[in-house]
């Protein structure tokens, strides 16, 4: 008998009549059918709550299926109709005493879902009994129930001694009970202000023993909890990692990735290089194997691999081939693979990588093609020996005349010029053929930068700039800044050619434009030029700092934090969880005698002693970063974005654009139903100013090629 027929809109009145009908109802078939109709309507989103007296009346029917449907109804509507929950209390009281453990567990489980004070207060006593029930199934259900209760009323849980009861459960004889108790404790610890889970070695060792007998999910919970072990001696870390390592062979990727997380964490506390090395060796094969799972898990795996290989470059360094994209990979998998390919590219394999990238650049998906083109340019910057071939490849791509390919190529060629000055000027002619097709600000700004930089080599540079200047006031700030600087460069290099343009631009920049950045830069140039031309020359044409793909590396502090979150959402987005999860506790490496010194900032381990000093320190870190920025800012050589992109090789402008594009498309819904989106957006900026900024300075990989992260990450 199929239940599909119940999937149609039912009238409340009719359903009520059916429930109350006096007709003979053997085995309650009729009642069951009516209840199914009600559940189907609930699923479709029709409000059935007004039926509550009639549904509650069915609770007395001694059929498990009926009971489960009534409970489902209760869970759905208890909050809206608390009074109906009161009527159910009697039945719950009876059920928690039932001789059948399944019924006892069902009652406890359901009561935990009902957030009505009266029910909650009736739950405390039976819950305490159930936590010591003789049946493991009831105990494991009760363990989770404590977490439920905590979400409703944390004080109640803390004061009623449930935490201690949970702690006792950690040494329960049944592995499922242990796993659920661990899961509950972990969650409570993550959410509570003053409860912090800390496991010592002896309890950790017991948990690892329980691993062998747990269900796969239970293994994940236990592994997760091992992140709260702080090894005091290197030997502890090694022993623990050694015992967890077999989990890497598990068929469930959640177990594998969580094990990877714990092992990577424990490596921070190991002392001998050979131990670390042998662990790294063990990590590689299971990470590769993740790529034979479903595409969604592959994506999760790839994003995490990108983190792991930044910390431990020896992992997977010889496995680049498996990251080559298949033609029919989903786009998100391709994008993630591309980033890893770039990272693993080295002198030895660059030949193959380049030919793959060329292949990708002819595919159909616009974002993927762009990213491939951009990667070719970055490859040139990363590996000098291959620069010549990369430039040739880019020129070939420009010949295709596909608009976005051309623009993307020009953007990266700017970086190549920047890295290898005076080597590839011969291609400027080809670039200039495509001026008319440029319509993206980033490409325009790049081209303008090239014209300004080589103003003395390009015969008609003044004409070219003049063409661009024609639309000066309509351009984006990025392009305007580039134009301003390029024009000044032109004037300094070829005063006669630039003398007509400079006053025009300076006047526009200082009088017609509202942007303070542009205005200020205009004033500075103006005063420099009018007071001391030699000084102007020294500033504007000064030696530029080197760019390298080192700046693509993630901020080490952020990387360290993300590694503690492997497999989680934040590791996929490469954003600290505190930036998008409200009330989330930050994680950090807890100091112990065994903790290896991190060379990037020695004070880091201490600063988290209290969160205030953490903020303070990070602010300092940021400040030093911005000092760097400022010192380079007046080298007078900005491609147009406040100096920043000069050394991150890819301006952050497109990021904002993409973001706003998504915001627009989501606007209607997001505003109406989530409402607080804007709130979080502000909150992120307010709470964590340094995060986003350092990401832009240090780890701009999020910007590269308009990453996958942004697409899915619409804060």
């Amino acid at each position, binding site marked *: 008998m199929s239940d599909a027929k119940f999937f149609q809109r039912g009238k409340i009145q009719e359903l009520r009549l059916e429930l109350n009908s006096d007709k003979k109802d053997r085995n309650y078939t009729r009642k069951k059918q009516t209840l199914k109709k009600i559940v189907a309507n609930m699923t479709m989103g029709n409000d059935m709550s007004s039926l509550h007296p009639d549904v509650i009346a069915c609770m007395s029917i001694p059929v498990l299926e009926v009971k489960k449907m009534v409970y489902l109804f209760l869970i759905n509507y208890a909050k809206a109709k608390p009074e109906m929950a009161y009527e159910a209390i009697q039945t719950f009281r009876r059920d928690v005493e039932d001789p059948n453990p399944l019924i006892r567990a069902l009652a406890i489980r359901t009561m935990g879902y009902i957030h009505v004070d009266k029910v909650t207060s009736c739950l405390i006593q039976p819950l305490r009994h159930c936590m010591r029930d003789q049946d493991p199934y009831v105990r494991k259900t009760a363990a989770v129930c404590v977490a439920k209760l905590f979400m409703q009323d944390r004080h109640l849980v803390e004061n009623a001694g449930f935490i201690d009861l949970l702690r006792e459960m950690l040494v329960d004889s049944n*592995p499922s009970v242990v796993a659920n108790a661990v899961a509950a404790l972990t969650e409570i610890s993550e959410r509570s202000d003053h409860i912090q889970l800390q496991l010592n070695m002896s309890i950790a060792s017991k948990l690892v023993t329980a691993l062998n007998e747990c*269900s796969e999910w239970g293994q994940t919970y236990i592994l997760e909890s091992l992140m709260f072990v702080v090894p005091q001696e290197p030997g502890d870390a090694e022993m623990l990692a050694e015992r967890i390592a077999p989990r890497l062979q598990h068929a469930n990727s959640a177990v594998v990735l969580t094990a990877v997380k714990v092992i990577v964490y424990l490596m921070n506390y190991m002392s001998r290089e050979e131990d670390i090395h042998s662990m790294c060796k063990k990590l590689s094969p299971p990470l590769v194997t993740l790529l034979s799972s479903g595409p969604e898990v592959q994506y999760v795996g790839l994003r995490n691999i990108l983190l792991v290989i930044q910390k431990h470059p020896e992992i997977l360094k010889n496995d680049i081939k498996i990251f080559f994209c298949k033609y029919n990979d989903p786009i998100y998998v391709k994008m993630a693979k591309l980033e890893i390919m770039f990272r693993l590219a080295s002198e030895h394999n660059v030949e193959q990588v380049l030919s793959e990238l060329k292949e990708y650049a002819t595919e159909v998906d616009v974002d993927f093609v762009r990213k491939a083109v951009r990667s070719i340019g970055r490859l040139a910057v990363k590996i000098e020996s291959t620069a010549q071939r990369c430039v040739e490849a880019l020129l070939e791509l420009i010949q295709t005349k596909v608009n976005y390919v051309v623009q993307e190529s020009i953007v990266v060629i700017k970086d190549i010029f920047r890295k290898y000055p005076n080597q590839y000027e011969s291609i400027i002619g080809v670039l200039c053929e495509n001026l008319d097709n440029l319509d993206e600000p980033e490409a325009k700004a790049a081209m303008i930068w090239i014209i300004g930089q080589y103003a003395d080599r390009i015969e008609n540079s003044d004409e070219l700039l003049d063409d661009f200047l024609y639309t000066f006031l309509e351009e984006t700030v990025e392009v305007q800044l580039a134009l301003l600087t390029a024009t000044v460069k032109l004037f300094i290099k070829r005063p006669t050619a630039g003398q007509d343009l400079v006053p025009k631009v300076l006047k526009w920049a200082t009088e017609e434009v509202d942007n303070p950045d542009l205005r200020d830069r205009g004033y500075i140039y103006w005063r420099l030029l009018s007071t001391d031309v030699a000084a102007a020359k020294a500033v504007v044409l000064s030696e530029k700092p080197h760019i390298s793909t080192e700046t693509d590396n993630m901020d080490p502090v952020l990387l360290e934090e993300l590694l503690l979150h492997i497999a989680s959402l934040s590791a996929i987005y490469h954003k600290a969880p505190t930036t998008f999860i409200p009330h989330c506790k930050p994680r950090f490496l807890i100091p112990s005698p065994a903790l290896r010194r991190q060379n990037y900032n020695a004070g880091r381990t201490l600063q988290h002693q209290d969160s205030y000093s953490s903020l303070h320190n990070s602010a300092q870190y940021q400040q030093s970063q911005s000092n760097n920025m400022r010192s380079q800012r007046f080298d007078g050589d900005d491609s147009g974005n406040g100096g920043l992109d000069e050394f991150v090789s890819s301006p952050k402008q497109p990021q904002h654009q993409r973001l706003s594009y998504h915001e627009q498309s989501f606007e209607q819904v997001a505003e109406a139903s989530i409402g607080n989106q804007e709130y979080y957006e502000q909150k992120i900026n307010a709470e964590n100013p340094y995060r986003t900024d350092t990401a832009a300075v240090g780890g701009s990989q999020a910007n590269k090629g308009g990453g996958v992260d942004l697409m899915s990450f619409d804060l």
Partner: protein
Amino acid sequence: MISAFFIYNQKGEVLISRLYRQDLKRSIADIFRIQVISNTDVRSPIITLGSTSFFHVRHENLYIVALTKWNANAALIFEFCYRVINVGRSYFGKFDEEAVKANFVLIYELLDEVLDFGYPQNSEADTLKMYITTESVKSERAVMEDSAKITIQATGATSWRRSDVKYRKNEAFIDVIESVNLLLSAQGNVLRADVAGQIMMRAYLSGTPECKFGLNDKVLLEKDPSNRRKTSNTVEIDDCQFHQCVKLGKFDSDRTISFIPPDGEFELMRYRTSDNINLPFKVHPVVIEIGKSKIEYRILVKANFSSKLYANNVVLNIPTPLNTAGVTCTASSGKAKYVPAENSIVWKIPRFQGQSEFTLTGEANLTAMTHKKAWSRPPISMDFQVLMFTSSGLLVRFLKVFEKNNYQSVKWVRYMTKAGNYQIRF
């Protein structure tokens, strides 16, 4: 952890909706419909709006969706979605819109059981079937008597197996199924070649059998000095993963595979190898673009395995440009025809003897195009099945069954190699 779980059909209608936490409302279901189902360009399986994250997996004509407001374990959530599909298939044969609608009440029961407060619990179909049953006629009395057994089963160390299994004839079937992946460059170089293998087992064994399973695994055989002579015939396994019944600790210490199998069919292990791959087919494509109106094809396929074996259902997909007007082609065996909907020539060879070779010659006529974008030349892809052949050379050496009743058991083994991603660029 998971805050809500939904199943939608393709139209975006909610078929199943279950909230586990109070941090979300039912109305969130509409957001997913608008953001993902009615969006033609979905570029990630995870979407985060504000602090709510939507994870989705597509299966048949369904969207399986899990929501969280926490920095949850993404691998766990996706694995859980896959598991729901598997449990569904095990219960209903197929997990699609029809099956979900026909069994929605049962699915709610299952969801109440396998997810508690968003934490996945025991989700082994075999155990679940003991107490969540399709025929609700089972008397309450019986449930009561069984219940203690059920709860031990659902929480115990071998949660995947009931203890009272009985067969008159004890049999075990092993299927070694290899998917061989190949990416060949236009110049004929192997860019990547690897094998993803799967060992499926169907165990019809009574009681609580302890099984030991052996492969010609290089690492294992080389450890044992008595075997040193025979090691020429071994396979180097890059990595393997096991069903949760396999004792991982034991494998880690001495590389033996021992386990108490679930009853019926399950995937015992998965493995990967990239060493010494025997590619079952060689393809030599010659594709020449003549001007802007014509493309000439000459494709040669050769079977590279023993002439005693043969391959079934060999299919080659040979791409043609989007502006193809028509194709004329002849094949020396099987049938080849142009399929406009797939933009390719589909060449089917139902039976392909080992060591033989066939060719296809053809010509595609193109219509004039206004925009000048070059043809992206997608790779030729190939599909096939070769019985009793493993690309990796993997062999099953033994399967031993130990049970306290000491019964005789019959074991069968089969091998098959099929095409995974078998792609040839040209």
